[in-house]
């Protein structure tokens, strides 16, 4: 496991708060990139110069995480929360972090059965009954936790068998790790054109991170790298890709056909096994924005298989990360004049 997995997943940055991660990323990128830019929305864009800067290939991993927002401090000093991107059934019994004036550990407990009706017990806990306990008097809580503060899962990587691990926010910090691993692999390789690694904001809420990154960096090709659902007990096989089977490659109208061909031949050259997945109008990744920003960017989507997405115990397999990093590095090597010819050649358009 790369040491950045622990570092990046342990940091807290709900959509809008991504600058909290910039220091970690900047120090990881030092020595393997030539230039780092911060955009107005907080995207961090790192550039590895090629022999020529006439063309550029961009990979993007989003660095925001899912979380909840504090909506109320009640009479007892407990916090009410609002959240849309997380299965509410996960909160009861969970330790969380509240990000107010300073980080506060919290607990979302459940009422004991003795004060519950049978009817209540047979239903998921309604959102209105989810309260965060920070163990402080109300007066103090009001000062420390302004309404609008974010609430996240708690940091910590649990190592499982087979080089697999569980943590919060492997979606999508694991892909940020992948991009940095790829840069490390390319350390002593001269690249034909510029390689841009973008660490984007707000993917979980708006996609504006990718939109503005696409505009600022205006690459020829923009490939989003995100997580995808890995095989999960009780979920039909056709809805997932195999865990440990290598990165996923998305096929569909969001993905430019020449970019797809580049990805496929790079996977073959790097001897990286892959799984195909499909999308139609939306891939649910930064690629959706790349495709449409400005004059349009030829887009692609790679993914890392992940179980239990948007939970505190997302599970991934390091072998998939290693393979994805090798694939990203190989795509950067193959992004050359011949490919540019293919991309803009009359036959392609």
């Amino acid at each position: 496991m790369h040491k950045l997995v622990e570092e990046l997943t342990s940091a807290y940055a709900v959509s809008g708060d991504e600058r909290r991660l910039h220091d970690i990323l900047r120090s990881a990128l030092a020595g393997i990139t030539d230039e780092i830019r911060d955009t107005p929305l907080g995207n961090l864009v790192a550039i590895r110069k090629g022999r020529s800067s006439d063309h550029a290939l961009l990979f993007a991993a989003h660095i925001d995480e899912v979380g909840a927002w504090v909506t109320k401090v009640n009479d007892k000093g407990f916090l009410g929360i609002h959240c849309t991107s997380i299965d509410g059934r996960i909160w009861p019994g969970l330790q969380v972090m509240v990000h107010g004036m300073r980080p506060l550990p919290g607990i979302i407990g459940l009422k004991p059965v003795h004060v519950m009706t049978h009817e209540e017990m047979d239903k998921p806990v309604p959102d209105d009954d989810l309260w965060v306990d920070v163990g402080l008097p109300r007066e103090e809580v009001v000062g420390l936790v302004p309404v609008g503060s974010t609430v996240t899962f708690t940091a910590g990587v649990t190592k499982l068998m087979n080089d697999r691990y569980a943590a919060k926010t492997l979606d999508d910090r694991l892909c940020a790790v992948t991009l940095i691993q790829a840069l490390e692999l390319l350390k002593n390789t001269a690249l034909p054109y510029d390689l841009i690694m973008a660490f984007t904001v707000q993917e979980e809420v708006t996609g504006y991170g990718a939109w503005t990154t696409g505009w600022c960096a205006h690459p020829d090709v923009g490939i989003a790298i995100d997580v995808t659902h890995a095989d999960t007990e009780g979920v039909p096989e056709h809805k997932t890709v195999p865990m440990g089977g290598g990165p996923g490659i998305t096929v569909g109208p969001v993905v430019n056909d020449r970019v797809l061909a580049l990805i496929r031949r790079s996977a073959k050259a790097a001897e990286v096994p892959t799984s195909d997945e499909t999308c139609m109008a939306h891939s649910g990744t930064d690629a959706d924005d790349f495709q449409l920003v400005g004059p349009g960017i030829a887009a692609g989507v790679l993914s890392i298989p992940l179980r239990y997405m948007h939970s505190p115990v997302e599970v991934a397999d390091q072998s998939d990360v290693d393979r994805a990093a090798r694939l990203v590095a190989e795509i950067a090597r193959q992004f050359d004049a011949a490919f540019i010819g293919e991309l803009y050649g009359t036959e392609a358009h």
Partner: protein
Amino acid sequence: MEQKRIELLRKLTEARGISGREDEVAEILRAELAGHADTVERDAIKNLFVLKGMNKPGPRVMLNAHMDEVGLYVTHITKEGYLHVGKAGGIDDRLLLGKKVLVGTAPLPGVIAAKAVHLCTPEEIETKVVKVEDLVIDVGAKSDKDVAGKVAVGDQVTFATTFGTFGDGYFVGKAFDDRAGCAVVAELLRIDWPFPVIGMFSTQEEIGTKGARVGAWRYTPDISITVEGTIAADIGEVKDYQEVTNLGGGPVLTIKDGGMVTDHQLRKRLIEIAVKNGLPWQFKRMPAGGTDARSIQTAKGGVKAVAVAVPARYIHSPVSLIKESDYENTVTLLTKFLADLAGMEA
């Protein structure tokens, strides 16, 4: 609170032991009380007895807390290497999704699988409780061969929760029910009393106060104090008349719970001692739940029994809270009570 006392709470709550698997807790208590007992022994149901001054005159006093915690156990291993589980003790199924656990004796870290939100229908999320029989634990195995020799059907699964300080004078951890009681009893057993003392750390409380049933038959006291971690519902939007107990309110005295009516004289004396010493105390304000005290009360011809508890939020869940002051006041109240019983100054 002294670091040594906090350390004991940490060790006891982080120890793993569902009903029938209390050995790790017993070993911690045995080591903790080495040199403070005449006899330490375990019986057929694995209760741990710490006997002191059994030949001394005066009433035989039992100090009791249970060692087991609620948790899960492995019921089946799938070909893909997932573990199916059952509940050991009373846990609301809705507390389980997405929690970190420890499996078996190794132990293996694992997670309770929570299907990605994107793969659930809105109807599922809003209306369907995922029952324990539909859950699996993922330890990272690729097949049943990966876990062969490491996990067996029947192995315990405990919540991977670490002990720590929390908020304004709280402790956070798992299993305060009843490791807080074990710690209190251990503290009381370090003191030499002029009457016979039977320390009984019981087993299998969470599945029917079973250890205490046979333990109180083996060593039947005249007076018994069961020390518990009990429900505090002073949380969220729960109405004040439904709080049962509240943190910071002091030791909890039970009049009646789901299993017994406690001894009026002993309870009255406890209140007098609390008032005399300016200690906070509170009644358990809902006649629910049950403790080992019900099994002890009915041993042989009957025993004068009371239950005293440290109030705890979120018991029977992956993570719970107690207040340091409640723990300390419980130890102090019981120390003063026993000293009074002995005619000692304390």
